[in-house]
């Protein structure tokens, strides 16, 4: 797996904001940035058990002559070296395949619908398809670039949540930013969650980082979300307990994505976690 983040560039002011966020994320997590400037309306991602067709919305193909120039400008301005991806394989002459062995990928809330649809509560089907199958977590940036200064991880006890915590720990280490854990207990005491974290081998690393635990024993989950700092990177597992549902993510996840405007890193069921 390469230590890179895949960013599909949209040559619009909205796309510019997304690119800034990708650049910031890369800088803070010491990852290389790879940009794909779309050459056709679709591309394919062949995952292990499914091939996801990403239909791009028209704005991705706007003004191709200036796309590369704009992207390079922005990347250079932020002090990184622009690196682009040229698809090497094609399923059909107008259908390029993109590699999938990245560490992260940036996707806006919707990649195939109009930009007007990008709002709270909506995550497009293609993006969902990618999250469901990818071995990398997906970064969904806020609509306007804002540098995050801390990391909030939602932990509900499931395996997916455990993975999310692992990513949180890694990113906190690399970036040096403080880590917050958010748990809405459903009547269970804090020790129960501590026990779970310990079983997953996460308690020790967390303590080393000296994290803060936002533990809510009561109250409405949605209301408690207000406690998530405004300048936080939110990391959350796509599914909680229970079997994988095809259309929707886990219930908490859906609530989170409809309520929080923060930058989000969503950890799907197949995400590979690196040992640190």
């Amino acid at each position, binding site marked *: 797996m390469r230590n890179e983040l895949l960013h599909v560039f949209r040559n619009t002011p909205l796309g510019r904001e997304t690119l800034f966020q990708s650049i910031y994320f890369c800088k803070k997590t010491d990852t*290389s940035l790879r940009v794909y400037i779309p050459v056709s309306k*679709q591309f394919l991602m*062949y995952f292990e*058990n499914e*091939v996801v*067709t990403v239909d791009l919305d028209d704005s991705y193909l706007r003004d191709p002559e200036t796309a590369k120039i704009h992207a390079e400008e922005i990347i250079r301005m932020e002090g990184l070296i622009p690196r682009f991806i040229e698809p090497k394989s*094609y*399923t*059909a*002459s107008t259908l390029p395949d993109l590699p999938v062995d990245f560490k992260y990928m940036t996707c806006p809330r919707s990649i195939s619908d109009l930009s007007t649809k990008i709002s709270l509560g909506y995550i497009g089907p293609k993006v969902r398809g990618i999250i469901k199958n990818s071995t990398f977590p997906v970064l969904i940036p806020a609509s306007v670039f804002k540098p995050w200064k801390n990391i909030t991880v939602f932990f509900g006890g499931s395996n997916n949540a455990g993975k999310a915590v692992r990513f949180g720990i890694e990113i906190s280490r690399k970036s040096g930013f403080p880590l917050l854990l958010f748990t809405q207990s459903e009547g269970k005491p804090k020790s129960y969650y501590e026990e779970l974290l310990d079983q997953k081998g996460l308690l020790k690393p967390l303590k080393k980082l000296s994290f803060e635990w936002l533990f809510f024993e009561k109250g409405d989950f949605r209301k408690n979300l207000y406690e998530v700092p405004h300048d936080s990177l939110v990391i959350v597992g796509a599914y909680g307990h229970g079997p994988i549902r095809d259309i929707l993510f886990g219930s908490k996840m859906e609530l989170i994505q409809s309520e929080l405007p923060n930058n989000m890193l969503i950890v799907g069921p197949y995400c590979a976690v690196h040992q640190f």
Partner: protein
Amino acid sequence: MDERLKLVFIGAVAGVGGGTAAVFLNKALEIGREILLPYRGSWYSFIFPAIGAFLSTVFLIYIVKDVGGHGVPEVIYSVTKRGGLIRLRSSFSRIISCALTISSGGSAGPESPVVISGASVASNIACHFRLKDRQRIILVGGGAAAAIAAIFNAPVAGMAFSLEAIIGEWTSTNLIVIAVSAAVGAEVCRIFQGNQIPFKGGTFTISNADLLACIGLSFFTCLSAILLMKLLRFIRSLSNRIVSSPCIRAALGGLIVGVIGIFIPEVLGEGYHFVREIIHGKSKYGLLLAGLITLGKTLATCLTIGTGGIGGLFAPCLVIGSFLGLFYQKLLLFIAPSFSWAGESYFALLGMAGVLSSVLQAPMTGIFLITEITGGYQVLISVVLVSVISVCLSRIFEPFSVYHQELIARGEFLRPRTDRYILSELNILELIDQNCQKIRSDMRLREFVEIVKKTKSDFFAVIDPKDGHYIGLVHLDDIRSYLFDPNLYDTILVEELIDPNIPTVSLDHELLEVMEIFDYSHNSVLPVVHDGKFFGLISKSKILDHYRKELMVEEEI
């Protein structure tokens, strides 16, 4: 349950899928024909192919958001490079497009679109059962076989096509599952459409002279196949250059086909009706007309498919072949009228076998298909003769089948257990040796000598201490003389010992490219550098070791 048995069961399910796809397409074609029947005679009917082609591409590209092309190259690509993964939308998109193209009069066949439908259904069934690549590939082969088996009521041909054209190898594991799928597919179709042999001919009386005449026919079929393939390529590239919008392009092609159809109605649609006539000996065409229709059908087919119409080549090959056979028979009668040559149906049958085998570069498929769909087992020898000779001759001019050409042009064609295939399976990351010692560029020879004493490597990567970037490689072989000259110990910096002629390889390189770099640079070891950072060394000997293991694992027992 035993893994293989499980696979056979799932193969049967895939067979049902493939068979159903064929049934759907047949039904759709019937419906289309019925709808347009009352309008066939009218003056404006020549515009139908254009409209049909236009609608089919619009549907395919804008509504379903799939891509054009008849689909078999995509199945081959998926099987050879993508572990058999095919998009679900391809299971129905091509069927509908194809129905629109053909029923409106476009000169194409329903077979290739049904292949990708069957393959896609099988692929998604395999995904549902969480099968791994190798098994999914076999299942995809099964789906394709089932589709062909169903649409022609010819299970053996379906199997042969799948193994010959799509998977590319006949191995025992493949065979069983695919045979089951094909049989099930054919059966599914029989349930809905009855067990008929599509082109059942009568009995044949053949003399030795007829067998000799077959050889002559092979030349003609070979020529015909070459003409078809070359014309198809030509029209495809020409139309791509002239018209950029795929829908308009298809419509234009359809228009020309429609115009041809005014004069030669035999070129429109599938054309099986005419084939049946010829096989039953009921045709009324003379020598010149038969020849004209052969050429006309070839042109119409290339126009339909070359401009982006969705349809396959099987049916047109059969039509072209039967008219060619008819032409040849009439020619024989012309040359030696008193000799009692075999009937038209005999030569038509052989014509079909010859043309199909050559265009597909798949003699087994041609042989099995023709014998199965005509019930002509008596004439097996003749069929084999014509198929084989025609294929061998056409291979000289057109070495690859019409399906493989597209892939080859893109450099995507890989056959299992070939050098290119194995190299494409291996990834650089698997071959990197990270035991190479890194040293700072500002180190003096004296310190370097101490390091050499302690390590076992022959190669040392020189890194810039300021940004950690790779600068070059030092090979002990090249610097032996300096190592033993103490006078140089304080005057030489390690940076000066670098061999500037060693090219680097990045993690993005495909292994085939890496081998090419090895070949032209004559190094046995190369450094892997990505984004300026040194990752390790890659050596030819390690590649050999992995290559062999990969090949061994690929081998079927």
